[in-house]
């Protein structure tokens, strides 16, 4: 039996097929995209597959933001510091050319060896990191550059100094900054999309997710510790809250899934980067033609309907 999400997608497909051109956006691309998503949806991921995504999303060889930057962007120029206190290395910001066009990039950055991991604080940003991100967003808006964000964090850093510097407020304001932008914005979850620390830089016109990335309200271990009172039940917790890409697509949280090479992005970073680039360019193409105000309005509308209520 087709799932509810499948029915929704089918409905959208049939609607789109019958529609005339919409403000110059390329409908044929949209059709193909939906058909592609529909094919992916046919197979509901099992508990095993969900856990495999959790493992792959955290794989130590999985490409991180800078691995993609060097493969996708030309002439990347990194921007440092929040202009207030510090340069948080858990978030990378900069300018670069994507297919010949200048974009602003914001992404979480993890480290591969112990030294690098410490420097990057395991991809867990302080408020300074989110303030640096907001500075980059403001720059994008000022100069009309599209914004691309890459999301890969276990979560915002839970520490005394982070709280004192206003972690909650920084995450809230970073989302608000993204909601205000009128330039095209594309976010892609490339590894772990951990809770508030992830969504802080993931409020975009188009949100993509790599095939084996995860996006969740809490880590499987954290959820297990609270609800099962045993962090060892992480596998059960993950199966219960379904952080995998297929479920996120089904719930309408993301707009599309970016395929990975067979076996995961780490098996072939070059191909993974190629697929990611195609995904980002495809998403940009869909939103480029919109009027800036229209883009912002549609972005807000998209988020305003997220969630599921009981039928009255």
């Amino acid at each position: 039996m087709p799932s509810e999400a499948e029915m929704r997608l089918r409905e959208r497909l049939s609607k789109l097929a019958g529609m005339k051109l919409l403000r110059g956006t390329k409908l044929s691309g949209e059709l193909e995209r939906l058909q592609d998503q529909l094919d992916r949806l046919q197979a509901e991921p099992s508990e095993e597959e969900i856990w495999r995504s959790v493992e792959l999303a955290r794989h130590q060889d999985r490409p991180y933001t800078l691995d993609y930057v060097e493969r996708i962007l030309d002439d990347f120029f990194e921007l440092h510091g929040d202009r207030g206190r510090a340069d948080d290395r858990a978030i990378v910001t900069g300018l670069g050319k994507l297919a010949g066009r200048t974009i602003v990039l914001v992404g979480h950055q993890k480290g591969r060896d112990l030294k690098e991991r410490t420097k990057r604080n395991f991809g867990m940003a302080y408020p300074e990191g989110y303030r640096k991100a907001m500075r980059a967003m403001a720059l994008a808006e000022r100069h009309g550059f599209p914004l691309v964000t890459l999301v890969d964090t276990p979560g915002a850093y839970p520490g005394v100094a982070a709280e004192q510097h206003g972690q909650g407020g920084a995450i809230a304001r970073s989302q608000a900054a993204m909601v205000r932008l009128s330039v095209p914005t594309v976010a892609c979850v490339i590894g772990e999309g951990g809770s508030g620390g992830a969504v802080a830089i993931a409020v975009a016109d188009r949100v993509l997710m790599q095939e084996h990335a995860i996006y969740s309200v809490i880590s499987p271990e954290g959820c297990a510790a609270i609800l099962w009172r045993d962090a060892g039940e992480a596998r059960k917790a993950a199966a219960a809250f379904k952080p995998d890409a297929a479920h996120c697509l089904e719930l309408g949280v993301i707009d599309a899934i970016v395929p990975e090479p067979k076996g995961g992005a780490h098996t072939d970073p070059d191909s993974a980067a190629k697929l990611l680039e195609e995904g980002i360019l495809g998403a940009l193409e869909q939103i480029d033609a919109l009027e800036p105000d229209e883009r912002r309005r549609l972005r807000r509308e998209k988020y305003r309907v997220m969630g599921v209520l009981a039928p009255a």
Partner: protein
Amino acid sequence: MSSPDSGRVDVSVETKRAPDTAPEKSHPNTCPGCGSHYRDDELAQTLRVCPQCGHHFPVGARERIEQLADPGSFAEEDAELRSADPLGFFDLRPYAERLAEAEIATGLGDAIVCGSATVEGEGCRLSVMDFSFMGGSMGSVVGEKFARACDSASEGGVPLVSVSASGGARMQEGILALMQLPKTVCAIEELHDSGGALFSVLTHPTTGGVLASFASLGDVVLAEPGALMSFAGPRVVAQTTREKLPDDFGLAESNYRFGHVDGIVPRAELRPTISRLLRLFKEN
């Protein structure tokens, strides 16, 4: 801080025969600050503030509205909204069962109550959270009701007063709970674009996703004395970082010192403070 033992009556005789497994949690009406105990009606009269030491007890949404709104002025909106169970979530018990139980225990449809009211004659919208409904967690209903309260404030041309008390996003709704953060943020942006204002009052505790979204985005942000307002709770911070936490970790007083709130307002002054702000934000 006063010693918890000071001025206590010795009741050891009465408790001698108590079972060994005496509940660790004290009675909800026993003050954790000074150990004084009150009848429920006594506490209700003092706005649930301990007359001895000033400790602020938690206040439910309905009672908070009674404390703030002019008598008879509150008209609830969107009371009929209820959570669905989009994931078919089942931990030790089904989410649907937890929801039903919370509704029976609290008499509320979810962890937030919204509506229009006047405060000392000034019109506004109120959006008040209730910690006793599943820890004040934010799922689709809390996000939706808050967002609609923003719309309603904007349509009515009055400010929105938000009183938060929340443990964060509701895990049982998975990623959709996380999406309530940007959803409420979008609603506030729309409210601000229409010229509307948001006053955010943080009460104990306001943590996680609620702090990381609408509670932090008030034009004016106030907190009650002693309220915990941290993104990560003290236990999580202590466990992950093994740092020694300062005594006032994440409390309103610490947040005030670091510049994250505009003022700490004792409960007795909250109503006059809000009406003052409502007058200040009125169009000239």
